[in-house]
């Protein structure tokens, strides 16, 4: 059924991504690719992988943006993946029932057995979360590592999405955004977490934490190199400087 759950559950699993500390290393994208190449959405086909125009399916993409001008500008690394929206039009446009949103945890998935590869769901996603597998002829997307987070053969601490587990800067957090008391909800409250493109009305579950403000004065006067020889100094360094300047 591509109609949205009539009674969405209280649990809304998702990610909180901290743009203040993401270092843009792409480890999340790589580990996502690695895990999901063997998971429920496998394979994530790569075409011409060692050729001139490689083309492959990835669920995570890390962009880097500049915002602002001059000394006050910021460079922000920006991981982009499925936001598991509360109002996902990618689900409702699906003509076959392949796209669906789970009532119990809000995860948006594709049943590849039902997908006809019409690509309409990818047109309906404002965020570019879905990538078509040209080889398999079906649409693929982030599963929130559904085969990892519920996998009881793993240690409890490993039952988090691959992107979260691998992030060396802990810029990615996983949890229940439907529970106001959860660690991720607290983080969103305290740091002013926000939705991407709220004007689209998709009500994304994933939140982004903004870069923290610069420390006072740090942006106004960029640091300068100290002079090689402090002005008016005497002693050995000044003697060498005089000797070599002649």
């Amino acid at each position, binding site marked *: 059924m591509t*109609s949205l759950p009539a009674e969405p559950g209280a649990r809304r699993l998702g990610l909180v991504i901290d743009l203040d500390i993401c270092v843009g290393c792409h480890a999340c994208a790589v580990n996502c690719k690695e895990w999901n190449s063997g998971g429920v959405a496998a394979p994530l086909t790569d075409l011409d992988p060692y050729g001139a125009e490689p083309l492959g399916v990835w669920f995570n993409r890390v*962009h880097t943006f500049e*915002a602002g001008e001059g000394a006050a500008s910021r460079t*922000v690394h920006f991981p982009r993946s499925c936001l598991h929206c509360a109002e996902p039009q990618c689900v409702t446009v699906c*003509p076959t029932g392949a796209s669906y949103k789970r009532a119990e945890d809000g995860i948006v998935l594709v049943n590849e057995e039902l997908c006809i590869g019409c690509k309409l769901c*990818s047109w*309906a996603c404002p965020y*570019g979360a879905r*990538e078509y597998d040209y080889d398999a002829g079906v649409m693929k997307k982030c599963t929130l590592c559904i085969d990892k987070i519920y996998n009881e053969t793993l240690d409890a601490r490993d039952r988090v999405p691959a992107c979260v587990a691998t992030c060396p800067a802990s810029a990615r957090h996983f949890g229940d955004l439907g529970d106001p008391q959860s660690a991720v909800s607290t983080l969103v409250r305290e740091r002013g977490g926000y939705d991407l*493109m709220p004007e689209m009305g998709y009500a994304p579950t994933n939140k982004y934490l903004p870069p923290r403000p610069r420390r006072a004065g740090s942006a106004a006067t960029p640091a300068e190199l100290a002079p090689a020889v402090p002005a008016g100094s005497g002693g050995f360094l000044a003697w060498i400087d005089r000797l070599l300047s002649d």
Partner: protein
Amino acid sequence: MHPALSVILFTTLSGAGYGLLAWLGVLAPAGLLPADRGFGAAALGLALVSVTIGLLSSTFHLGHPERAWRAFSQWRSSWLSREGVASVATYVPALLFAVGWVVLGSTAGVWAGLGLLAALAAAVTVGCTAFIYQSLKPIQRWSNGWVLPNYLALAAMTGALWLAALMQIFGLDPLAGTVAALGSIPLALALKVAYWRFIDGTASRSTAESATGLGSLGKVRLFEAPHTSENYLMKEMGFRVARKHAAKLRRIAIGLGFVAPFALTLANLALGGVSAMAIAVIAALLGTLGVLVERWLFFAEAKHTVTLYYGQSTA
């Protein structure tokens, strides 16, 4: 948006077919078309064949065409599914109407009702096609109220041009088809120009700032792309047509698709015989070709919000 040839062919051909079917279903019961069996067979046949070719060609771009039947299941939420259901449902009154007209030689009574029903179903199907595009919020140039009237008017226009040509070919008094064409061409052109004015004059709802949420820091620009070669998103959604080509193609579409068929149809009022037949056929072909160009532009000029993550500042 990438203009897939199969989708452009589908919407143009099936639009013209449903347009022709709708005119036949309305004009014949109104007594404005002769219940000529040969003409009925040819006209209804052309309408249904082009609709069928259009529907089949729409499955060519699917990753799994053999599963296309599944697309009839989600009519509760999906306009694509509704289009599929409506398109198949249209065959029922259309084929029964054809039985009355071609086999029994009657377009009156119950057959007239079936004709009107076929016309209504044809309009609903074209409306569903329009809503597939109009309902997509990430594409502002589709997600507006001009799309539905444009699709309906263009289907009516091409259908009327085909009708006028068929009436000439069968040596019938072409007045009904000619009037339908002369009435629907200016209407379709006005709606198309209004659509173009709307998409040119409307500010982008989403920006690179709203896509990243970094607007409070200032103007947002892409510093480094996430990958060095194109991915699916860029191939499918990042299609860009040079601005100058868009302007040129719009002029070609207006000239070929609207002005030339209108002038030829108008000239035909004073002509008769073989030359009138040839001119009506040329007008129908030009109108269809113009709509193909228009439909290509409809896709090529549409911008998707995902491009905001790939260096565009507006969508």
